[in-house]
Structure formats: structure tokens, C-alpha cells
């Protein structure tokens, strides 16, 4: 198979990336760029907006396109303003779970409701990586984090269910353990007219894995393979996910 050359989309002067060894964000970055290449999108007409956190560094400064690295939690309204003023721009938000779902959750639900024509790619590593492994609103129940040393007493968001509940017309979730399916979902999201949302389950061995008996990237990828099960829109909407599992698929 011909693998497209994605170097042309990257600022070589900022390489290597600042990501930790074993970080899943490189797989996601690759999937996004291949999807863009496959669609033949004009990179100079694309705007990548991100917030604060490790995943926000996927586009900024690596992508050789227009990038807007914003304040914590706010990339979606920045993107909304840019897209509303210039609808010709292809606007993509790439940021993390803490950024888009915890502090920025209000903007996520309103963008989905408003059906603004942007694509949001949420890298979910289930933890605040950059600040030292604190609890996120996406951390599964009972997991150990810096701020839940006895295990998370709360339950986590199913962010795809949230987006669907707000009326999003194009919602998908795959993990970096299935990069081909993830790429296909991103491609379909980029093509979609209206608000599209892709949750990319990714791995953080440094902060999350070490505290939860998965210190190596290999163990974390294996765990993603185990917990991800194919699901339908109806199953996600109903919230009847089997214990310890997470539905993946394109839910629209």
C-alpha cells in the first residue's frame, strides 16, 4: 500500500515533537494528516484551533497551516468566530479531554446544538497529562490519578453520547489501537457539512498508565483493544454499555 508523504504538512524545524515516549498523540496526528491527504484538502485553507494541554500541541506548532493555539477550554468558540466570519475556511479543532469536555464542556454542547460547520477531534487520554496526571471528567470510575489516590469515586462522561444528545449529526469514536478505522472516521467527519465530532481514545503511559498498572505503551494499547467493542448509535444513546467496555464506531 502507498503511504502518503505527510512531511509536507509538518514544520520540520519544530521536530522532534515534545510528546513523551509512548504517547498516543503521534498516531492521532498521523491519522489526521493522512485523512486530509486522502481527501485532497487544501492545507493553506485549513485552520487548526486548539486549547491548552498535550493534545493541543498536535496542530500547534507542528502543522504547516494556520494554527490558533488558544486559552484553556476555549478553542471551540475561537473556531466558531473564525468560521462564522469566513465560512470558506476549513476549521478543525484538535484538543484534549480536559480542554474540550471538562473546562470547555459548555462550548462543546453549544457547538453541537448550533451545528456550526467545524470538525472537533477530541484526544481522550482520560487524564490531565501536562499538569501531572490529575482526575479528568473522562477518567473511568475507580482509576488512580494524582488527585484520586484511592481511585476515582465518580463516573466518567461518555462524550459521544453527550454530543449525540446535543444533536450532533456526525459522531464517531475509535482508539489509536485501530488507526485505520480512526482515520476513516476522521475523513468522514472532515467531509461532513455541519458539526462533526470524533473522539480518539489515546494513551498516556507517563501519567495514566503508570498509576494504573499499565506502565508500557504496549500494555495500554492492549487494554484499548480489550475494552473497545463495536457499538451502534442506538446503543450509545441508550447508555447500556457493558461493564468495563466502551462502544466504538461511527454513530450517525
Amino acid at each position: 500500500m502507498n503511504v502518503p508523504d505527510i512531511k509536507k504538512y509538518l514544520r520540520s524545524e519544530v521536530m522532534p515533537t515534545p510528546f513523551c515516549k509512548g504517547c498516543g498523540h503521534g498516531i492521532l496526528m498521523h491519522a489526521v494528516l493522512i485523512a486530509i491527504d486522502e481527501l485532497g484538502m487544501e492545507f493553506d485553507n485549513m485552520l487548526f484551533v486548539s486549547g491548552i494541554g498535550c493534545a493541543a500541541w498536535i496542530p500547534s506548532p507542528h502543522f504547516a497551516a494556520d494554527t490558533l493555539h488558544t486559552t484553556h477550554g476555549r478553542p471551540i468558540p475561537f473556531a466558531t468566530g473564525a468560521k462564522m466570519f469566513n465560512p470558506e475556511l476549513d476549521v478543525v479543532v484538535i484538543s484534549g479531554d480536559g480542554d474540550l469536555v471538562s473546562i470547555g464542556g459548555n462550548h462543546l454542547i453549544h457547538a453541537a446544538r448550533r451545528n456550526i460547520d467545524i470538525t472537533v477531534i477530541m484526544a481522550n487520554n482520560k487524564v490531565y497529562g501536562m499538569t501531572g496526571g490529575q482526575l479528568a471528567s473522562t477518567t473511568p470510575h475507580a482509576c488512580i490519578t494524582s488527585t484520586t489516590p484511592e481511585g476515582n469515586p465518580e463516573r466518567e462522561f461518555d462524550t459521544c453520547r453527550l454530543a449525540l444528545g446535543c444533536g450532533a449529526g456526525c459522531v464517531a469514536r475509535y482508539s489509536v489501537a485501530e488507526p485505520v478505522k480512526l482515520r476513516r472516521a476522521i475523513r468522514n467527519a472532515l467531509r461532513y457539512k455541519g458539526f462533526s465530532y470524533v473522539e480518539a481514545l489515546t494513551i498516556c503511559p507517563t501519567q495514566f498508565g503508570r498509576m494504573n498498572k499499565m506502565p508500557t505503551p504496549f500494555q495500554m494499547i492492549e487494554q484499548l483493544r480489550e475494552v473497545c467493542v463495536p457499538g451502534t448509535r442506538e446503543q450509545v444513546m441508550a447508555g447500556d454499555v457493558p461493564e468495563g467496555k466502551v462502544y466504538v464506531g461511527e454513530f450517525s
Partner: protein
Amino acid sequence: MNESISRNAFIGKRMNAKRDETKQEKRMMAGNAACVEGALAAGCNFYGGYPITPSSEIMNLMARRLPATGGVFAQMEDEIASIAAVIGAAWAGAKAMTATSGPGLALMLENIGYARATETPCVVVDVQRCGPSTGQATRPAQGDVMQVRFGASGDCEAIALAPWSVQEMYEMTVRAFNLAERYRTPVFLVTDELVSHLHELVDLSAETAVLKRPETRGLPPFGDSATNAPTPMPRFGTGERLLVTGSSHDEWGYRKTTDPTVQRKLVERITSRIAGDRNEIAEVEEINTEDAEIVLVSFGFSARSAYAAMRPAREAGMKVGLARLKALWPFPREAIRRLGDGADRLIVVEMNLGMVRREVERVASCAVSGVHKNTGEPISPREILRVIS
């Protein structure tokens, strides 16, 4: 300027403005409506906002007027999103603004700091109401003087204009847009419930110089580090591959978060260009100050009370003048220092407990006192006269 201009000062007496006879018109309108007219005259083509008393009329009018003039109106989910959308739109090429009041401004401040760091031109109208907190939403105050100056984190210089009439709501909104373009920074129009809801005759016929944003390519997006002057504001979608970040960055936008030189140069860039033009930006209107022993220092609606108190004081033989701050920030240090050197006493008149007075005390060599009120009521001329005599 002297007393003879009388009350017309409030209804649009304009200095040095050329008139276009063909479109001369005086209309009765509220301050907030004049602000909208000024924004449109200045080329505003994006508004992002969230309702809050007493600024909401600006948003309501924008919702009708902007789409009709080819602009874009966005009602966002909160004030944080409003200013975020404004900044996003500005980078997409818009002349963008928002309007709010004290509590909403508090929510916007992080992103206003972002706009300063990223040299994003935009206009933020703050219609002050009585605080702290929710306070008295429909009552006037001037309690945001320090919030607009110091509310966001880190070192910065702020530009904040302070209109006292409906005419100035129009003219200063135009000026706010021009200053935003010229210095590539967010500019505040700091008004209050009274000036915003006041109805007066407004003359919209004067020619209004409007700064156009030049289209340039290939320049560093974040200033000329030799002169600290801003480079023209670029926009997304033109192949410039812009790197915009609120993290410390060099003039090309590359994030350098541990480099002391980059950090120093960034702060120098965004502060020195405003501080260096302090005297030009911070206009002070002086009335009867030539022989004044007592100079009232005021701004916004309170300056009207001070103006009204001046006449009976003069008639009673007291040499009273008025220094009206047309801009709060950068603070007009030199003008206040000079007035303090020539007078026996400066009396600051403001609807707060002494925010501008603190600045005046820092620079004036003479005695400084104040007439302060934060009860949600305007200061009456009588209250000022009691302090003068």
C-alpha cells in the same frame, strides 16, 4: 477651551471635524445606539456577545444592523465564548467587537489577555453598572476603572476611552476601532449606565477617518522587534501559515516558553508602543483650567455633574476648572502633573470609592481629594459644590 461653549458641549459640538453637508443629520438616540452607529461607521463587521444589563441594547441593535450591512452577528453561550469568537473572527479578517458590563467583563479577561499577547485588534465596550458582583444591574457606577487596566494576568498596557455624551459614544467608538488597528490591541470603550441610556441629539454627518487593514504578505506577524511597532494584522486563509499562540512567542509566533529574551521582547513590544504614545492616546479636555485654583478631575457621566457644578462655583467667585479624562488608560500623567503644579487642589469626581483618585494622587504635587459615590446614583452638582466650598 472655555466656558463659552456652554451646554452644547453635551450635544455634539465637535472640534476640528469636517462636515459633509450632503448627509448632515442630527438624530435623537441613546448612547448605546450611537455606539452601534459608530461601530458600523468604523467598519465593524463582526459582533460576538452575550446579553447583560445595561449593555444589551448594543447587542439587540447589532443583531438587526450587522446582517443588513454584510456583517456577522453571533450570540454566544457566555462572555468567555463571546470574546473568544471576537478574537477568532479578527484573525479571520474581521473588525470585531463585543459589549458587556462588569460581571461579564470579569469572564472575558483571560481572553482579553490573550488578545493583548497575540496583538489582536478588537473593541470591548464596558457599560459599567453598580458592583461588586451582580450588584445593581440597572444602576450606574464607574467601578471598572481598575478591572480594565489590571484585570488580566501579566504585564500589559491598556487603552480605555471614556465618553461623556451620546455624541462621544459615536465618535469614541470609531476612535476605539482605529486605535485597535493602529496598536493591534484590544481597546475598551468604558461607559456607564447613564451615558449609555441617555438620549441626546447626535450628529452623524462628520467625516470619520477609518483605518483600513492593509493586505500584506510575508511579514513577521508579531511585530518588528527592532522598533516594537506592530506589523499589519494578517489573516487566516491567505497561505501565511500563521502560528498564533498565547504562550510566549517570537515575532513569527514560535512558542518559546523558557526563553527570557523572547519573553522580555514580547512584553516590551505590547507595552512600549502604547506607553510611548501615552500623551497622544490619553486626551484630556480642559475647561476653565487656565486660572483655576481648584480643578475637578472627572470622566464619563460624572464629568457632566462636575461641569454643572463649575458654573455656580465660578459665579460665587471660586476659580474652578474641569479636567475631563477622555481616556482612562494609558493614564494622562503629564497633564495631571501639570494641572497639579498650577492648582491648589485637585478634586476627583467619580462613581467609585477612589480609583482614578489613586492615580491622580500618584502624580499630583498639590492636595488631592475626591467626591465619591457608589450607591447606584449619579453624583449631583450640589454634592460637588459642598466639597468645593
